[in-house]
């Protein structure tokens, strides 16, 4: 057993486990306050329409209705960018125009918010909603990116001429990609399409806002970036930041959706208008219509050039994404996607472009993987194609082009560590790759089996593109316990446990002796928040440094108490003792107590406070292996088995890391096979706005999953840790696609890979059994 660490690396229970297991844990929708009103949002039934008039007389006349907000009531409330990228968060002057309002004068998609009500209970609020009479001027609409780019297409936004919200290029181009493609021994290329995927957090969006007697807007929010939400709400409602307070209870999942403000603007607006607490909880339909979902790419062109020995020499990409009615976090999907995927392999000639196009559909944004998933779906299939054409094993060709530490990583920074090779080899062994791939091809009949793999790398935090500023404060109590003040998003990633472990390891105490103080912008220092798989790394980095600061004080005081040089002391398992004579020491509590209750004029409470802004970015690597069964008569794909091997540095809590990968497998499987956000091409109506039509994998859809954690420390991360929130899903669709190819010899280039697509691909190949049309 590895005794290098006493706390880090252990499979500890999460501190919030009992609260969640007993139902005691409170989510926003569980909170109540005296006099609280319930809010509901009216959503446009048209994909593009001007709200000419809202007649709220009947609604206001209903007893129990406290307020209605229409586009006429916005007063001096400012427009905003829900993704908050109009704040100084993104390097390079990237800005998103703040076009969205609390409720919108022009609805830009089916389900856009056009009015809101607040009433004494949910029944009256729903009744009031149905009493609002809205006159719409229906406008022409456009639903897909290609059409939106066409001349004469209806314009979605004045800030996006030709409907191009953003034209963004790959930020790290190198070499001469066209020349390299011309000179390559082999060019593989394809046109791909990826789908808009909904996060489907089990808890829908919710917010409880109230104005207290001091005139402060207090907001119970689910936002992953609470300090940023604070600024955003202050900005919308023309309040000084000090007049806004954000608090966070437990949050039912996020996966990137709550990196934007969701229910907050409407709830806050109604709270300000009524001067009463207002709770807004979205229905599941509200969630599908009113929140961001993963940016879908109508088209991704990829061309890759290889030499005959398998060396990758060129990658050129073009992405055409649809943003929906507002820009939100969507545009960065292409930049992040291109950056991470095109920087994954060593390749001296790289170029990429994207058009992120506005359309009249619900908004696109950030979801776990943030574009890397879409791009790796393309790139890893093309690598497989090259491996076949060049006669080189898929793992060998990838190993050949894998970057080594010391090279430049995807985000333009130096690659500190990489164990991708070990991921590939250990994953292959566990999976039985060599035996399975070299099996004799025999006629398997109707059900064909296939085996495929893919690799990926993902960022840990988004330096240098996004602001990576985190803070942590540590206070040591007289019993040796610690209060750790940090503000990661409590969305279920087991981050509290990880931060406790990091803090405890450094201070020499137990993880269960760390109390997380969080959930309040008054109490916490500035925190960018949780996204981009950054929390363990950046917030953990701040925690480590703050704990170290407190430890220095602890050891110095202990040295004085024990009358020994401070260098001779070690803190571990709740004690401070001599390295040379472990029995000689004191408990951490005793040292702290002595420092607090001291009459000598030097009383002190050991503490640490550290601001931390990592300027490096240690990518996490993964290798993914899928076994599929394709029923060639029905086109159905089953995935009986999946192996994921991950290099996320040192696993602070292996159980939590497994949880991220196992959970990512569910979302990756959905993205690959079952989830499809469908907008009716004739009416612009969203047809998949609840779980009866939008299908996420359940217990019977999941493969047998095995996870390998390579567990080698990265030099930069806290105790060697890197991020792991997103990688769990990035490599899944291409591994499955490559396995499908191995099974039936067809490449599926669109997501999701439905039975109809499989049968159509087989038909094209001349192997389908019977027509489907």
């Amino acid at each position, binding site marked *: 057993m590895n005794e290098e660490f006493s706390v880090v690396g252990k499979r500890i229970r999460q501190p919030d486990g009992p609260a969640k297991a007993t139902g005691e844990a409170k989510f926003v929708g569980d909170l109540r306050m005296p006099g609280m009103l319930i809010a509901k949002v009216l959503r446009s039934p048209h994909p593009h329409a001007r709200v000419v008039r809202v007649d709220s007389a009947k609604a206001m006349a209903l007893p129990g209705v406290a307020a209605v907000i229409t586009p006429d009531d916005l007063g001096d409330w400012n427009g905003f960018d829900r993704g908050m990228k109009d704040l100084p968060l993104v390097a390079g002057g990237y800005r998103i125009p703040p076009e969205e309002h609390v409720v919108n004068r022009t609805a830009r998609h089916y389900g856009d918010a056009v009015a809101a009500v607040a009433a004494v209970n949910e029944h009256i609020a729903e009744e009031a909603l149905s009493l609002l009479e809205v006159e719409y001027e229906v406008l022409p609409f456009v639903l897909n990116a290609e059409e939106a780019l066409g001349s004469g297409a209806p314009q979605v936004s004045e800030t996006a001429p030709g409907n191009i919200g953003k034209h963004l290029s790959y930020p790290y181009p190198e070499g001469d990609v066209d020349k390299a493609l011309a000179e390559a021994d082999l060019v593989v290329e394809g046109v791909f399409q990826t789908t808009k995927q909904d996060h489907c957090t089990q808890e829908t969006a919710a917010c409880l806002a109230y104005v207290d007697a001091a005139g402060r807007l207090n907001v119970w929010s689910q936002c992953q970036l609470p300090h940023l939400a604070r600024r955003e709400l202050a900005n919308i409602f023309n309040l000084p930041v000090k007049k806004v307070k954000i608090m966070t209870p437990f949050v039912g999942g996020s996966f990137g959706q709550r990196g934007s403000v969701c229910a907050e603007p409407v709830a806050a607006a109604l709270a300000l208008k009524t001067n009463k607490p207002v709770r807004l909880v979205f*229905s599941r339909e509200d969630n599908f219509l009113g929140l961001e979902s993963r940016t879908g790419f109508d088209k991704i062109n990829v061309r890759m050039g290889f030499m005959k020995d398998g060396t990758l020499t060129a990658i050129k990409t073009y992405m055409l994404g649809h943003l929906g009615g507002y820009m939100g976090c969507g545009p960065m999907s292409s930049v992040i996607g291109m950056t991470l995927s095109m920087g994954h392999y060593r390749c001296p000639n790289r170029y990429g472009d994207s058009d992120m196009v506005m359309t009249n559909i619900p908004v696109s944004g950030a979801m776990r993987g943030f574009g890397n998933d879409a791009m790796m779906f393309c790139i890893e299939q093309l690598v497989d194609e090259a491996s076949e054409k060049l006669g080189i094993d898929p793992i060998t060709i990838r190993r050949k082009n894998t970057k080594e530490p010391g090279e430049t990583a995807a985000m333009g920074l130096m690659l500190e560590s990489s164990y991708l090779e070990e991921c590939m080899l250990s994953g292959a062994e566990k999976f039985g790759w060599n035996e399975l791939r070299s099996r004799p091809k025999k006629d398997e009949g109707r059900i064909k089996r296939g085996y495929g793999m893919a690799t990926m790398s993902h960022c840990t935090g988004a330096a240098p593109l996004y602001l990576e500023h985190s803070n942590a404060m540590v206070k040591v109590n007289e019993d040796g316990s610690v209060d750790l003040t940090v503000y990661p998003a409590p969305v279920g990633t087991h981050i509290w446990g990880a931060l406790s472990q990091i803090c405890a390891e450094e201070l020499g105490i137990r993880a269960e002796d760390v109390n997380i103080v969080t959930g309040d912008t008054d109490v916490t220092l500035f925190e960018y928040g949780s996204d981009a798989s950054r929390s363990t790394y950046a917030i953990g980095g701040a925690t480590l440094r703050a704990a170290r600061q407190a430890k220095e004080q602890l050891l110095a005081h202990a040295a004085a108490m024990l009358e020994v040089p401070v260098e001779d002391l070690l803190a571990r398992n709740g004690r401070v003792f001599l390295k040379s004579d472990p029995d000689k020491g004191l408990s951490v509590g005793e040292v702290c107590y002595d420092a607090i209750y001291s009459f000598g004029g030097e009383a002190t409470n050991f503490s640490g406070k550290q601001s931390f802004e990592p300027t490096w970015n240690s990518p996490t690597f993964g290798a993914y292996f899928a076994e599929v069964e394709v029923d060639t008569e*029905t086109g159905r794909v089953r995935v009986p088995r999946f192996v994921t091997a991950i290099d996320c540095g040192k696993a602070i809590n292996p159980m939590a890391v497994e949880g991220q990968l196992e959970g990512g497998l569910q979302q990756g499987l959905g993205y690959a096979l079952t989830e*499809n956000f469908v907008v009716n091409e004739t009416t612009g109506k969203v047809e998949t706005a609840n779980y009866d039509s939008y299908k996420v994998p359940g217990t019977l859809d999941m493969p047998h999953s095995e996870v390998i954690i390579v567990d080698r420390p990265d030099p930069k991360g806290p105790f060697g840790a890197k991020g792991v929130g997103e990688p769990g899903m990035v490599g899944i669709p291409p591994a499955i696609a490559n396995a499908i190819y191995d099974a039936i010899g067809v490449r599926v280039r669109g997501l999701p890979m*439905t039975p*109809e697509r499989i*049968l159509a691909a087989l038909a094209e190949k001349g192997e389908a059994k*019977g027509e*489907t049309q």
Partner: protein
Amino acid sequence: MFRVLRPFEYIEAESVDDAVELLARYGADARVIAGGTDLVISMKKRELAPKYLIAIGHLPELSFLELDPDGALRVGPLSTHAVVGRSPLVKEHFEMLATASNEVGTPQVRNMGTIGGNVCKAGPSQDTPPVLIALEAILTLKGPRGARTVPMGEFCTGPFCTILSPDEVLTEIRIPPLPEGSAGCYKWCTKITSVDETLAGAGVVLTLNADGTCRDVRIGLGSVAPTAIRARQAEDMLRGTKLDPEEVAAAAETAFTECMPRSRAGYRRHMVRVMVKDAVNELKDKITGERTMGDAGEGAR
């Protein structure tokens, strides 16, 4: 969709006759409620807004599951899908009904939803109707003018339309015994995930002569037409034949043409063709005691 329901009066019927009388009294403003899953969802969507709900879910006279001496199964309409699906009686004598019942919704929905509610809803995408049609079930309806029986095949007239009068209550589903030399199975495929609405379903009953030729075949198809239907032309093609692969494939092809699906039409038809072929072949093997091709009723994946 809304999260709460519009106001209504809730009246617990004391008996079936009482329920009938209440329905007659309140007319179009009233609905019976049993398990309530479908009804509550419709009410949440504001598709329905009954002012009176007549609760019948507690009436013992509607809760039974009995095998008659002649081998007919009488199913009380309040039997939940879970009860039907787990019933040793059903599994032994009419396994295809158990299979279909176990496919409805989720485990929780199966604990709540009743076979009677399912049949009376007459939604186009359901599992029990194609099975009941293939089993030639007889429904008993009770109204103020007395009771009448209706074959399942005549009960549904269109999506969500049945011949049940607003003042009638379904009181029994009777499944006649299968002839000697018969077996049945239910094949289905879901729309997308394993637990999902049915995209296409085929309830097939096959009866063989002693020489192995097809004496009778009944093919009930669900989710591929406005109501569950019998693929009568396909049936006609198979009767009297030896059920050779070509004959079965041709009949499956005919069943393909007898469907009238709306959405994903091509794939639904294709699945009907695959499932009818699989079902007939499987039942033929089962009856003649040859090598079994997997469990009867296993869903095509």
